[in-house]
């Protein structure tokens, strides 16, 4: 014994005596050996299973017969319930687990869920709880062997394996329907009782004791503990995100092992190449073993159906084995077609219908309203009501479309009807977005009074771009593609179709807006005029005219106004309205004014005359009038047919001239004649012609 160490213990500072072995402080050394390590040490340093006497003492209502097995999770004892006269298996979970305070809560929660699994092929949990330090599960006792022992005993024929698998699938499917995953399917967990019946044990135990990948710990040398051969690839990589399909993979590994006696590692051969069996089994097995879970069977019941199809039909051994890794078989019994998301066709139809109907209905409504001369606000409300009516199928379609999209996402992009769902859910929102963007652009043009085309161009581009981004984003979301993952070629088709759709609706939305109504406010001042141009898109939408020319005639003037619509070549007068506007002057106009009937006309129809009569308090009467033709109408202040000039508070009166037609490619001619008032209505005309090109603000003025 060399005694070359320090003379005092570096840890407890006590002197190290001469007879201390190897010169080490005995107290500290043995103390170190006595402390159990904090990280659970799988290599056999778990607390040993409690002796039978102790277990019996804790569970007086059971007869503890023998220890059946012990593993990392705990120990299982065979016991008997005297009152019920049956054998049970008592599983005592390892004491190390009980040390964690959160464990009790989780244990109760999980065990309650497991106790719901009542199925002939699942080892039933009768009871669970905590006795002192021990967490226990009271389970069905299976008198038999586990699958590992059965395979080791030799002579496991493929036909026997095929006979077991459907029951395994039934057990899995039952649990999956209850929302419970097994997570640890392996031959040791599959029991076969004396009558040859299969029972799956330890459902969800892995989750119950918290065997998340944290406990799939690495030894210092980097080897992974436990056998991950049965674990699905996604379980090894990111186990927090697994679903029931991981169990299907594990089932596949067990299946393969049963058939061939080997594990499917690396590039493995299909089972029929390793043992004599029906080659159709290959497709089933390979599909359960797909690395990508969306390519596997999506339900255990589907596996069951496939296997049963093979065993029930007459066996036909194909001459050539299929190539390795082939996708789903073409046999009609295997359902390869995934389900379609719910009501997706209906949603698409509703949305389409509402879109198609929207435009005609709106046009009719506008037309209807325009010719009624209704008040601005009333007309707006009626129009909104009509919009809503049209929108209802659209809204319903949109809601169903969104639901369908969610369903598709939840199925990992596997369900069909994605395109229909996209259309149904996005068509109306995109349309409304379009209107919003275009509206904003037109407001911008209004505010800046220039760059109208630039604004509209930007709006057009923005509409298309935003729309495409939204459609493609939703497509990727539904397909569960993480950012950065490349999508398949289908993206191209979707993008193109979406682009065409967006182009059409953008055009339809923007076209009317480009025909921007122009309001001109024209003040007659001798001799100069001022104009103001403003836009009134809303007025247009509800049938108000596209041109609102307002004349403000200062007192002492008589203005003769002619508004002409001319054709393209600016000489052909298409419509004309002319009238005298007489400004009030206290001296001369008092009393009531009567107005003849005014009506608007269609373009090209006969002119309608209008007159405005007035009387002064001296009994003089006079009139002014004109005629309407070519799509003009006259609105008098107050909306009525009379103008009471005595009550006019302004020094001038305003008469609005409205046009009901669009002015694109036509020239507006505003002819204003201002006349100074001299004497009783002896007009002296001064003609001022103004030529206004649609969209421009340049006046060409000629004053005689």
């Amino acid at each position, binding site marked *: 014994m060399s005694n070359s*160490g320090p003379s005092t213990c*570096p840890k407890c500072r006590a002197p190290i005596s001469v007879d201390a072995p190897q010169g*080490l402080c005995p107290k500290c050394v*043995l103390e170190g050996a006595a402390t159990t390590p904090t990280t659970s040490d799988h290599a056999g340093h778990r607390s*040993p299973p409690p002796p039978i006497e102790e277990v019996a003492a804790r569970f007086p209502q059971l007869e503890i017969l023998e220890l059946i097995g012990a593993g990392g999770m705990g120990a299982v004892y065979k016991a008997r319930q005297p009152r019920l006269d049956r054998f049970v298996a008592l599983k005592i979970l390892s004491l190390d687990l009980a040390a964690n305070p959160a464990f009790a809560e989780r244990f109760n929660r999980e065990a309650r869920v497991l106790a719901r699994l009542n199925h002939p092929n699942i080892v039933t949990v009768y009871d669970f709880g905590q006795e002192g330090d021990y967490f226990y599960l009271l389970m069905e006792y299976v008198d038999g062997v586990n699958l590992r022992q059965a395979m080791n005993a030799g002579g496991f024929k493929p036909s026997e394996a095929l006979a077991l698998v459907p029951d395994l699938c039934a057990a899995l499917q039952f649990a999956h329907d209850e929302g419970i995953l097994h997570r640890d399917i392996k031959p040791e967990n599959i029991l076969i009782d004396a009558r040859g019946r299969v029972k799956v044990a330890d459902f969800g135990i892995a989750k119950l004791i918290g065997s998340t990948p944290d406990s799939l710990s690495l030894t210092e040398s980097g080897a992974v503990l436990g056998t991950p051969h049965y674990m699905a690839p996604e379980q090894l990589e990111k186990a927090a995100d697994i679903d029931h399909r991981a169990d299907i993979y594990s089932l596949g590994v067990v299946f393969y092992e049963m058939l061939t006696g080997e594990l499917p590692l690396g590039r493995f051969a299909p089972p029929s190449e390793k043992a004599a069996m029906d080659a159709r089994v290959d497709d089933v097995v390979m599909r359960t073993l797909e690395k990508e879970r969306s390519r596997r069977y999506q339900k255990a019941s589907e596996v069951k159906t496939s296997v049963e199809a093979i065993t029930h039909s007459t066996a036909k051994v194909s001459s050539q084995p299929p190539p390795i890794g082939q996708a789903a078989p073409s046999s009609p019994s295997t359902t390869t077609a995934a389900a379609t998301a719910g009501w997706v066709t209906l949603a698409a139809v509703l949305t389409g219908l509402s879109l198609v109907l929207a435009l005609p209905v709106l046009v009719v409504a506008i037309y209807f309203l325009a010719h009624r001369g209704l008040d601005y606000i009333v007309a707006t409300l009626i129009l909104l009501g009509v919009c809503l009516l049209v929108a209802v199928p659209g809204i319903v379609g949109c809601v169903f479309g969104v639901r369908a999209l969610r369903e598709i996402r939840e199925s990992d992009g596997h369900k069909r009807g994605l395109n229909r769902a996209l259309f149904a859910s996005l068509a109306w929102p995109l349309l409304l977005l379009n209107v919003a963007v275009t509206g904003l652009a037109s407001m911008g043009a209004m505010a800046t009074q220039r760059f109208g085309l630039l604004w509209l161009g930007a709006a057009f581009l923005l509409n298309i771009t935003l729309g495409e981004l939204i459609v493609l984003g939703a497509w990727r979301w539904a397909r569960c593609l993480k950012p950065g993952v490349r999508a398949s070629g289908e993206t191209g088709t979707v993008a193109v179709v979406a682009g065409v759709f967006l182009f059409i609706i953008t055009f339809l939305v923007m076209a009317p807006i480009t025909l921007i109504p122009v309001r001109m406010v024209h003040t007659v001042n001798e001799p100069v005029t001022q104009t103001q141009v403003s836009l009134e898109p809303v007025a247009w939408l509800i049938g108000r005219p596209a041109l609102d020319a307002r004349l403000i005639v200062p007192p002492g003037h008589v203005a003769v106004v002619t508004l002409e619509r001319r054709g393209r070549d600016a000489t052909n007068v298409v419509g004309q309205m002319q009238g005298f506007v007489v400004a009030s002057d206290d001296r001369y106009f008092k009393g009531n004014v009567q107005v003849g009937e005014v009506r608007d006309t269609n373009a090209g129809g006969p002119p309608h005359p209008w007159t405005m009569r007035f009387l002064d308090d001296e009994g003089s009467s006079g009139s002014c009038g004109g005629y309407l033709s070519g799509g003009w109408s006259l609105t008098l202040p107050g909306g009525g047919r009379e103008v009471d000039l005595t009550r006019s508070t302004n020094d001038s009166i305003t008469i609005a001239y409205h046009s009901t037609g669009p002015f694109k490619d036509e020239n507006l001619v505003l002819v204003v004649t201002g006349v100074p008032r001299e004497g009783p209505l002896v007009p002296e005309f001064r003609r001022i012609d103004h030529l206004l090109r649609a969209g421009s603000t340049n006046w060409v003025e000629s004053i005689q």
Partner: protein
Amino acid sequence: MFRTTRWTLVLRAQGDAPEAHAALGELCEAYWTPVFRFLRREGRDEDAARELTQEFFSRLLAGAGIQKADPVRGRFRSYLLGALKHFLADQKRHEGRLKRGGNVDVQSIDGNEASDTSPGLQVPDPSATVSDTWFDRQWALAIMDRSLHSVEVEFKSGGRERQFEVLKPWLMGDAEGLSQSDAATQLDLSAGAVKVAVHRLRKSFRAAVRAEIAQTVTEPDEVDAELRYLVQVLGSEP
């Protein structure tokens, strides 16, 4: 599942079966030192203590005391101490008889007579009563020694003898005086590798201690209790 320990073997067979005999022999060989030291502590010189120890064990192996061992009170340590005290009491009676002249031969005080195989007249100092706790402490040291030795052998066979030498202070725990970076330099390893090696060493030692103790008890859960007791004994005043 639970390996039969040497002591359980001995108890069950009650000294009859040859395997039990062999097991007992191994146990005695293992815990020779605490007995020897106990006898030394009582005041005997080294040779006398040695001889007496041999006598005790041969008596034990001859089967004299095993029948009296109580299987319920599991631990070999307690048993051995009890047997030793019993043996010493017998010895005192024997010596007393001799003192009172029961024997024909005249005993020389120095004990130089060649014919006399009995140890010299060693009168133990009655004032130096060696406590049971002291014996247990020696027991603990023996356990520690044996465990260290077995780990040393394990490391040697793995070609890591030097590692064992350099890293064994870490069996006392982590302390300011212990620099892992120095060790890393000495062993030409990275810091991470030293951590790993320390962990492995502790693990091996822990296993060795538990294995040693397990041989001396009957139930596996007694290992923890025994180890705790031994630590406690080492912590108290010598």
